[in-house]
């Protein structure tokens, strides 16, 4: 199997892979916390955060082989979320830097 055949299979099953990674990482986290029900939200957070991995790998692969961009399932939503992440990031980082340096800013309050 060549890398392109593997990529074809991967891109065809990108959405099930995202779901599976999210669910599995949430379950693994819940097992690691010994089924502590008070930490369910932490496990959900971890599951959600890890479900970005398959799409992230696909984006990195697309940077080398742009012809695969059209093979990303529901690419409009993927680009929406990727764009929003890039838009959110500077504001969130600015808040953290302001907090760290002790600068008073309306955004911090």
């Amino acid at each position, binding site marked *: 199997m060549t890398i392109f055949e593997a990529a074809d299979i991967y891109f065809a099953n990108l*959405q099930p892979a995202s779901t599976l990674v*999210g669910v599995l990482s949430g379950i693994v986290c819940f097992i690691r916390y010994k089924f502590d029900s008070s930490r369910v*939200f932490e496990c959900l957070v971890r599951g959600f955060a890890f*479900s970005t991995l398959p*799409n992230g790998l696909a984006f990195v692969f697309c940077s080398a082989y742009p012809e695969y961009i059209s093979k990303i399932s*529901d690419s409009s*939503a993927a680009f929406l979320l990727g764009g929003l*992440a890039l838009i959110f990031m500077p504001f*969130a980082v600015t808040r*953290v830097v302001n907090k760290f340096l002790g600068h008073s800013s309306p955004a911090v309050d």
Partner: protein
Amino acid sequence: MTACAYFEAAEYESYCSDDNYAAVGFFSYLDNTETSVVVGVDTEEILVMYTSYMHRIAVDKRRKIMKGYLHYDLMDVPVMIGAGFFFNSISGVSWSLVSEAAAPVGLGLAAAVAGLVIGAIVSVKARESR
């Protein structure tokens, strides 16, 4: 309404509010109203003052809760984006189980936006539970 009934009601309210500063605020009013009752101020008027005071506190509390949900931190961003991808992929998988046709773009976008909101709420809940 008699002063006695008013104080009973007020006391009941303050204990039920489960809000210390509200109770403190109320009792500072109570000090004044006690003097006022002695000089003959209408207790209905005092009750209206007390109700509006409690209403203002309730509005401030709701504003604080909304501010807590709308405020986002650096930690919330990956959770929101991840939840967006997660719900988007769940909607795609669910659609593929129901229909052979390609999933509509609107469904994926709506699921992604819903995921962003759910991610923000879950992240706030996780932060509160620590």
